[in-house]
């Protein structure tokens, strides 16, 4: 009896001392707690191109801009039906996938002295903030990305976000100017580590975001135009400088816009956009628009219909923008020229802008492989006049910025292109998107009651 209890006692003692160690197995064998800058940059770039530039809200914006149309019965996103939950994924892409990792990448690169990575992180942060604020207006930044330290970050005003964007771009340019030894390589899908192109992108973005404020309260178009022109002196100089993501096109490497237009989505091109090419006699029609499978005709779908049409009777984007192996031209040289044209128009009038406007169209047509003769005929058919200058610049900019979120900003800023009313529309054309339900539930902020037709700060009437 005594023997037994002695044995038992010693057994228990041994196990007690061993059990702390026994349960010490909570070290994650699957996922690292730290990685190098290159491993973050590569997926962030893909997330920016495939999700932020071409995700759910990007498609919805193309429906607002009457470039894409959903082959479903109204009401739907194309007739301006939106719930807050519809924006959950896009906001998550922006904050969780892109910005949080860019902020982390910047901090890591600064700590590691990898100035080129730090510069890229700042420039991409500015791009993401710009995309976010133009969709939502006031958004969190200065109080965001603090994890447990702040579960309810207040939102920065859009004005502050615009200040932040410019300072991030300046800081990014300064980082790159330090000529760091370590540059990205294959992990940089945009520029393969060509830091001079990153700098040109940063200046082009500065110009873009200056121009966004042409009618913002307290800002003047002339000042903004001058700032833009100054920035553009160091901006993109040719189509080679395009900020673009190439896609291989093989399975698992398809362009996201090709994915957006696969038949399961029932999204095709809208009649407004397709008819525009025809009305203008635009030689880019056959390159930018694909003929309908069933009819071989270039036909867009009317939006807001109460019936479902024949999917195969409508056009999808042509292969230049819509093939599995197409590239995403996120910020491109033609846009830089159109910004220059618009800024020149503001400061010096339409005749000064004429040549810049024409070279902008030409740069896009060259990229698309339009013959010089056809390009010249087209350009000659659309000269700027005092009356139409802003309209034509913005219309042509929208074609060169095909599928870009930028077109929604230009539309709100200038009223161009002129868009017809959509059948069964639930409201006027939206001037923003809704805040996501996830934020409303977990981080209630006064801005979140905004409706689709409410204007963001810079969109003053």
């Amino acid at each position, binding site marked *: 009896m005594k023997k037994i209890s002695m044995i038992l006692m010693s057994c228990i003692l041994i196990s007690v001392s061993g059990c702390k160690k026994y*349960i010490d197995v909570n070290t*994650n064998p699957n*996922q690292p707690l730290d990685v190098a800058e290159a491993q973050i940059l590569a997926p962030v770039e893909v997330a920016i191109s495939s999700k932020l530039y071409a995700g759910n809200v990007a498609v919805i914006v193309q429906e607002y801009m009457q470039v894409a149309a959903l082959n479903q019965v109204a009401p739907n996103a194309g007739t301006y039906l939106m719930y807050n939950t519809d924006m959950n994924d896009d906001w998550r892409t922006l904050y969780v996938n892109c910005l949080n990792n860019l902020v982390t990448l910047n901090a890591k690169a600064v700590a590691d002295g990898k100035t080129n990575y730090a510069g890229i992180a700042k420039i991409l942060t500015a791009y993401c903030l710009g995309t976010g604020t133009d969709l939502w207006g006031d958004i969190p930044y200065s109080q965001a990305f603090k994890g447990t330290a702040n579960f309810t970050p207040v939102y920065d005003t859009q004005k502050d976000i615009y200040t932040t964007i410019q300072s991030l771009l300046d800081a990014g340019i300064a980082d790159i100017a330090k000529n760091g030894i370590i540059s990205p390589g294959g992990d940089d899908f945009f520029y393969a580590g060509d830091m001079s192109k990153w700098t040109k992108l940063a200046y082009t973005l500065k110009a873009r975001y200056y121009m966004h404020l042409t009618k913002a309260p307290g800002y003047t178009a002339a000042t903004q135009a001058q700032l833009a022109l100054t920035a553009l002196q160091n901006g993109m100089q040719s189509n080679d400088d395009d900020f673009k993501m190439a896609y291989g096109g093989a399975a698992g490497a398809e362009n996201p816009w090709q994915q957006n237009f696969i038949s399961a989505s029932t999204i095709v091109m809208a009649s407004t956009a397709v008819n525009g090419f025809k009305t203008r006699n635009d030689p880019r029609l056959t390159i930018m628009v694909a003929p309908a499978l069933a009819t071989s005709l270039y036909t867009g779908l009317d939006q807001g219909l109460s019936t479902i049409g024949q999917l195969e009777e409508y056009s999808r984007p042509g292969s230049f923008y819509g093939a599995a192996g197409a590239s995403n031209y996120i910020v491109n040289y033609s846009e830089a020229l159109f910004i220059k044209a618009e800024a020149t128009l503001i400061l010096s009038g339409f005749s000064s802008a004429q040549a810049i406007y024409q070279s902008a169209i030409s740069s896009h047509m060259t990229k698309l492989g339009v013959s010089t003769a056809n390009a010249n005929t087209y350009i000659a058919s659309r000269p700027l006049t005092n009356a139409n200058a802003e309209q034509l610049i913005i219309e042509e900019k929208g074609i060169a910025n095909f599928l870009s979120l930028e077109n929604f900003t230009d539309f709100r800023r200038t009223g161009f292109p002129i868009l017809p009313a959509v059948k069964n529309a639930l409201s006027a054309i939206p001037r923003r998107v809704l805040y996501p339900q996830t934020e409303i539930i977990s981080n209630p902020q006064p801005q979140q009651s905004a409706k689709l037709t409410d204007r963001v700060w810079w969109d003053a009437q």
Partner: protein
Amino acid sequence: MKLKRLFKRLVLLFLGIFVFGYNAKAQIITLKGKVSDEKGLSIPGASVKIKGTRKGTITNSEGIFTIDSNGPVILSVSAIGYTAKEVKVSNISNVNIILEEDNKTLSEVVVTALGIKRDKKVLTYSSQEIKGTDLVQGKDPNLVNDIAGKVSGVQITSSSGSPGSSTRIVVRGASSFYGNNDALMVVDGIPIDNSETGNLNSGPGSSRVADIDPSIIENINVLKGAAATALYGSLGANGVIIITTKTGSANKKPTINFTSDFSFENPLLPQIQSKYAQGTNGIYYNGDDQKTSTSWGPLMDTLKINGQPAKKYNQSDLFFKTGHTYNNVFSVNGGGAASNYYISYSNFNQQGTVPNTKFLRNSVFAKYSAQILPNLTTTFQLNYTNSQNDRLPEGYALESPVWTIFTAPISYNLLPYENADGTQRLYRYSRNNPYWVLDNISNKSGVNRFLPTFTADYKPLTWLTVTERFGADVYTEQDRYHESAESVSNPTGRIVVNNTNFRQFNNDLLISANHQFGDFNIDGVIGNNIYSQYSETAYANGVGLSVADLDNISSASTVTFIENQYNTRRIGFYAQSNIEYKKFLILSLTGRYDGSSVLSTAHNFYPYGSVATSFIFSEFFSKEFQDIMNLGKFRISYATIGGSNVVPYSLTTPYLTQSKDNIIRNISFPYNGQAGFLLSPTLGNPNLKNERINEFEAGFETGFFNNRISLEASYFAKKTTDGLIPGVSIAPSTGYDGTTVNTGIMQNRGIELLLNVVPVKTKDFTWNMTINYSRIRNKVLAIDGDLQQIGNGFTTIIVGQPYGTIYGTRYARTAQGQLRIDASGLPYADADQGVIGNINPDWTGGIANNIRYKQFNFSFFFDVKKGGDIQNNVDGYGYFYGTPKVTENRGLRVVPGVSDATGQANTVAVDGQAYYQRINGVTESVIQDGTYIKLRNVSVGYTVKPSWLRGSPFKAVNFSVTGRNLWIYAPHFTGGDPEVSSFGSSNGSQGIYSFSVPTSRSIDFSMKLTL
């Protein structure tokens, strides 16, 4: 008549013992006798031993035994299913021994936590036992489905009718917010895994408890409250299902049992309209060059196509086939003087109602017990199972064939499914042709599983037992998914291979002692538990299939691969003591100290325990009153349990490779030669501690007329505090969209009743009726700080609401609650979403009847659910398409409500299509009350008279026919079966009926032979 004769014999026997007992002489005589039951039926295979010796025998097929004795002896007679009896006999050479059937709760021994056997009468908490025979009658390969509706306080929800589909079992309401709320499964003292696995696309998987053949189970005991499960610690926080397998018996010749079942299954379909053709606004679309997803076309009866009357295609009848199930079980059991064995082999083969779906299970179970030394008994058992499951995607996934079958127009022939150029042929866009799916999409899983258990009981002293029990649960699972190119959703095709290695070890070393001190009987247990679970998965995803028909990942042009390993360990020390005073007052105390690897190192050890008492007041009744009320007992308990229901590695925030669940749209890393990691969207919480479940329980148990009527009632109040909520939503502007918190508070309160009545009990005719009733109320009291709601799949967790609230779009209403109607005469959705349903039933109940008349047995079982909302997603989509039965009424109507334009009652008429396509956008329109009454099981059996089998090799022959789901009354639900949850058994999948493979109505023919 016969009874009287029997009584006479009994009296004579006792007289004989009494009168002649003292005159016996010491000489060897041969005792001959017969063992029979109360009905006079002989009991073959009963063990007859002379007390105090090793001499023993068993009865033959007629219940006859002979045994040599040398004078007056005491015979110990026992048989399975009967109360053992000791009979003093002298030299009477013809002894009749009558054994009473062991169905009395008075002496019911039940298996409690850690395999400790206790008399149910002295238990201080609620538990409910289900016999193996009742289980087998359920005819389902998953034992959880076999107990559905039978246990009070337990809610069982099956998922889909696809063979092998998962089932959820929740005891006394949800305790955890996320993670898992399913009860722990314990087989012969060893916890086994019951994860839902095997589905690589949409829909449920298989519950791994389906690897256990129900025919090897002797009984199941459901431990409901925290006081009952405290000894299981964290693992048992959601209730414990104690499964005890069959054993052989000592001194018994081999008994061979062979059972064969064959059944037919027919699907329970939702109500679909069969009057209108494909089209819109009454205009016919042919589906070939005029495509539309809707069935708002003209009346079929008058429709002419190319001058011919239109042909009707009843898509469900054409697609579903009659399912077949074969189940053959072969078992042998018996034993020698110091050992016994039980061996069973079963083959279960179910071919589902959807072509190409099946569940195949081959299972071998062997158990061998041996008394190695007089005071040392060992048992070794091994269960090996091979399960093969073929299923298809379900729900509203683009690959789900049932989706298209339930919404296809009746005017369209879905066959052939291909055009001449090899592309799919379909009446609409964005879906796969369901027949194309049958030939081009497959989801297969195969499991090889071993459950070895070793138990040793060592009794160094008469009052002391040392038990060592080691068990493992080891399985490998291979899952494959194949989707051919030309699929609408994955145009380049897709192959997924997912292999899992799972192993779980459990060891208990416990020392138990029992001693009588005067009026006190004290037993105590101390012990140690070590538990570890390790799993490893290798997942490969291939896209861009290059070789048609090759179901091998080498066909893919891009392959991404992910591996994951998970390791969880727990260690526990526990003690229990039961103090019994004069058999009427019992005090039970348990305590446990647990360590769990998944919590922060500062908080990974935590204590908990329970205190419980019961008072058997019937002990004070007079003998006369005890004839009326034989049992009266109060019990009361309080327990606190610590749970660590959180996955490992939740303390840190790692970087995740951007693949599989984190794929960036279609792009997986490594991509273009680059590895890619982004910060986990789920923020780690380094301070995680255990959650706590506190439960108060009170109950009483009564028995009348020697348990001809017995009633058991319990009340419980359970509260989860410091609730672990993994992945609770946080604002994405924090940089993360979720984290794990330790702050949830949720309560469950409920009443459970169990009434057992034996209205008739004679030799030829017995009628046994069991009624159970449960009513549980759940309320979420806190989530995290000010956070008021978090999503949970198809339901939402909202503070102040029950767990399982449906939140979504609702009708715009006036302040008085009337519908607001727009200018076109239609109701519309409110801009704000709100609470539109609660999936928890008001109450549930069941009535089981078992009637035996002579050789016939008749049983039937109703179960009832009152309330509990379901989102009928089949109608949700169907309203748009014009396919539910209600849309047959599609004429003009004036929707009752208040017109926004006039402020008066609406007068604008709208047609059916406009109305239904409008309310399609309002989720509230498809929230249906899931109330049902179900005739779940009806069985008629016949046992061949033993006298007829004389001279044959058979000891018993039994035939039975069982019908399942023969009648369902669901007044508010328009789907096929109100009992399903289409996307599986997990917490987030509940409350939705959505295009899953329908559950079935079935008829089963069964034959049982005993040799």
